[in-house]
C-alpha cells in the first residue's frame, strides 16, 4: 500500500493530508505530531492568553476528523530521517518506510545563549502548552519581563498584562519592531502600549537572567540595572525546525530550498510551511515566511504533488506564491502588512543575522533599492505607508482603520500600473487615502 508520511501536524501538514485524501482515497497517510493535540490554530494562542478563547475552541480539526478521513495521527517525535532509503524512525523505535514524505515541522522560538536561560520561568511562545504556561505562571507572577520586537513579543506582553502582572517590555533599539515600523508607526503602537500600563524600555538588553533555587527572580540588564520578576518571555524570533536534515545532503539555506512543486533536492521529500524556502517571483529569490495562509497554500500544493509522485508521474501543481500578507492586532490596533515595505535602518549584516518573527515574511523587510520610493500619511492612530517601484505599488503597511487594506492588496497582487497617480502619491503632503481610494475606484470601474 502506498504510504504518505507527513512529519508535522500544523497548518501545512493538515492541508497536505486533506489534498492527498481528495485524490487518493486508499493510500495510507501517517501524520506525526510532537504535540499531544490534533490540529489547532497556532496564531490563536495569542487570544487564549487574553482570555478570548478557550483551549478547546482553539482545536481546528478534532480527532474525529482524522478518523473520518482515515488519517493516522501518531503522537511522538521522528528521531531520524533517511532521505535516500525513504525511512523515518519514531522515538518509540518504530521504523516508518514511506513512498513520499512531507517535512512540515514548523519553526521554534530562538533562545539566545544567555546565562540563566534554562531557569524555570523562562517562557517562549510557540505552542498551546506554552500558552497554558503563560496563563499559569502569569497568574502567580508579580512581574514579567518580555523581550523582543515582533508580534509575538507584543502578544506575550499583552497576555501577561491581562493577568494584571506588572509587565516590562524591553526593546533593543529605539523603536517598536524597528525592522518593520518607521518612527511614526512605532509611536502609534508605543502610545497603545503605555495606555495598557505596560512599562516600555528602549535601548534595553538582558545580560543575564537571575535565579533563586532554579526559578527566575529577575533580570540583569546590560546597563547594570536589575528588574525583579518571576517570569521572562523570550520572543526574539523563530527558526525553522531542520534538525532531521542536519546529516543529509538536502539543499538547505535558512530553510529547505524547494522547487515550484514543493520538492526538496530529493524528489520524494517535500517541504511546506515555515521550513520551506519558496521562490518569490518579485525578488527572484527563495525566501522564508512564517505565515499561516502560506503554510496552508504550500501544504495543499505539496499534497497534490505527492499523489502524482506516488503514481509515478511528474508533479502537476506548480505553486504560485502570492505577495506575503498578514493582518494582526497589536494592543487593540489593527495592522496589515503586504508585499515589500522595506527595512528601516537595519544594515546588511543585521539582516543576515536576524530571525523572523512569527506572522512575518522575509520579503517584507528586504531593503529597498534606490528606485523604490516610500510614501506615508496618517490621521490619528490610522496610518498608511506604501512603497512604489516600476510604476506600481509593491508594498503597503496599514495601522488602525483597515478600509484600504483589501483595495491595496488587490492593487499590489495584480500589479496595477499607477500611471499619472504615481507622482500624486509621491508628492509632499499627499493625502494618501484620498488618492489611493480614487485610484482604486477608477481601476475597479474602468
Amino acid at each position, binding site marked *: 500500500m502506498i504510504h504518505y508520511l507527513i512529519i508535522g501536524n500544523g497548518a501545512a501538514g493538515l492541508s497536505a493530508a*486533506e489534498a492527498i485524501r*481528495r485524490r487518493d482515497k486508499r493510500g495510507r497517510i501517517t501524520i506525526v505530531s510532537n504535540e499531544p493535540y490534533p490540529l489547532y*490554530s*497556532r*496564531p*490563536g494562542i*495569542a*487570544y487564549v492568553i487574553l482570555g*478570548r*478563547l*478557550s483551549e478547546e*475552541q*482553539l*482545536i*481546528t480539526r478534532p480527532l474525529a476528523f482524522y478518523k473520518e478521513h482515515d488519517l493516522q495521527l501518531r503522537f511522538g517525535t521522528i528521531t531520524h530521517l533517511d532521505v535516500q532509503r525513504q525511512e523515518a524512525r519514531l522515538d518509540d523505535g518504530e521504523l516508518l518506510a514511506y513512498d513520499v514524505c512531507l517535512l512540515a515541522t514548523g519553526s521554534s522560538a530562538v533562545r539566545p545563549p544567555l546565562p540563566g536561560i534554562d531557569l524555570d520561568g523562562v517562557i517562549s511562545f510557540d505552542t498551546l502548552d506554552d500558552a497554558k504556561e503563560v496563563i499559569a505562571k502569569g497568574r502567580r507572577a508579580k512581574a514579567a519581563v518580555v523581550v523582543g520586537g515582533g508580534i509575538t513579543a507584543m502578544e506575550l506582553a499583552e497576555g501577561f498584562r491581562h493577568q494584571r502582572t506588572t509587565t516590562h517590555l524591553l526593546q533593543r533599539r529605539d523603536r517598536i519592531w524597528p525592522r518593520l515600523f518607521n518612527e511614526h508607526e512605532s509611536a502609534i503602537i508605543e502610545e497603545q502600549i503605555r495606555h495598557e500600563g505596560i512599562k516600555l524600555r528602549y535601548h534595553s538588553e538582558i545580560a543575564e537572567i537571575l535565579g533563586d533555587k532554579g526559578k527566575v527572580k529577575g533580570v540583569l540588564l546590560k546597563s547594570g540595572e536589575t528588574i525583579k520578576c518571576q517570569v521572562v518571555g523570550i520572543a526574539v524570533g523563530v527558526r525553522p525546525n531542520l534538525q532531521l536534515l542536519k546529516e543529509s545532503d538536502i539543499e538547505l539555506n535558512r530553510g529547505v530550498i524547494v522547487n515550484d512543486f514543493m520538492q526538496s533536492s530529493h524528489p520524494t521529500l517535500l517541504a511546506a510551511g515555515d521550513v520551506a524556502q519558496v521562490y518569490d517571483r518579485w525578488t527572484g529569490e527563495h525566501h522564508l515566511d512564517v505565515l*499561516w*495562509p502560506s503554510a*496552508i*497554500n504550500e501544504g*495543499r500544493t505539496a499534497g497534490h504533488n505527492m499523489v502524482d509522485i506516488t503514481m509515478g508521474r511528474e508533479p502537476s501543481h506548480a505553486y504560485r506564491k*502570492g505577495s506575503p*500578507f498578514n*493582518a*494582526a*492586532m497589536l494592543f487593540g490596533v*489593527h495592522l*496589515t502588512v503586504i508585499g515589500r515595505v522595506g527595512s528601516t535602518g537595519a544594515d546588511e549584516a543585521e539582516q543576515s543575522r536576524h530571525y523572523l518573527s512569527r506572522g512575518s515574511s522575509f520579503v517584507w523587510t528586504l531593503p529597498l533599492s534606490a528606485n523604490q520610493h516610500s510614501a506615508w500619511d496618517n*490621521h*490619528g*492612530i*490610522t496610518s498608511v505607508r506604501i512603497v512604489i517601484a516600476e510604476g506600481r505599488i509593491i508594498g503597503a503597511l496599514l495601522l*488602525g*482603520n*483597515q*478600509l*484600504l*487594506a*483589501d483595495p491595496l*492588496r*488587490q492593487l499590489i*497582487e495584480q500589479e496595477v500600473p499607477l500611471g499619472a497617480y504615481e507622482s500624486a502619491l509621491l508628492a509632499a503632503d499627499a*493625502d494618501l*487615502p*484620498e488618492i489611493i*481610494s480614487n485610484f*482604486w*475606484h477608477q481601476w475597479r470601474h474602468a
Partner: protein
Amino acid sequence: MFLNITQLFKAQQISTEIPSTSATVLKLVTADATRCVQCGICSYNCPVGIDVREYARRGKQVTDSRCISCSACVNMCPRGTLRWGDAALIFEDATVEVDPKMLPDALHLQPRFA
C-alpha cells in the same frame, strides 16, 4: 449608494451598526479566507451556535438561517476576516438569487479551500 471611502478611512472607528435587512438586499457575514487563522473566536461568540469558523475557512458567506445578524463574530474577529457584505436578492415570491458579482473580491485572488 456610494460609499465615501475617504471619509470612512479617516474615521478612527468603523461604525458597527447592525445592518437592516430589506426586502431586496440581504446582508450576510462575509469572510476573506486568506485572513482567517481559524482561531475560532467567531464560533465561540456566536449566540446561536453557528460554526462561523467553518464558513470563514472556506471564504463563504454565512447562509445558516439561524443567523440573527448580531455582529458578534464580525466585531470579535481579531484579523479583520469578517465583514457584512451584500450577497443575495430576495424576491417577492421568497426565492433567493445570489449575485456572483457581489461575492468578496478576495475569492478571485486566492485558490479556494475544498
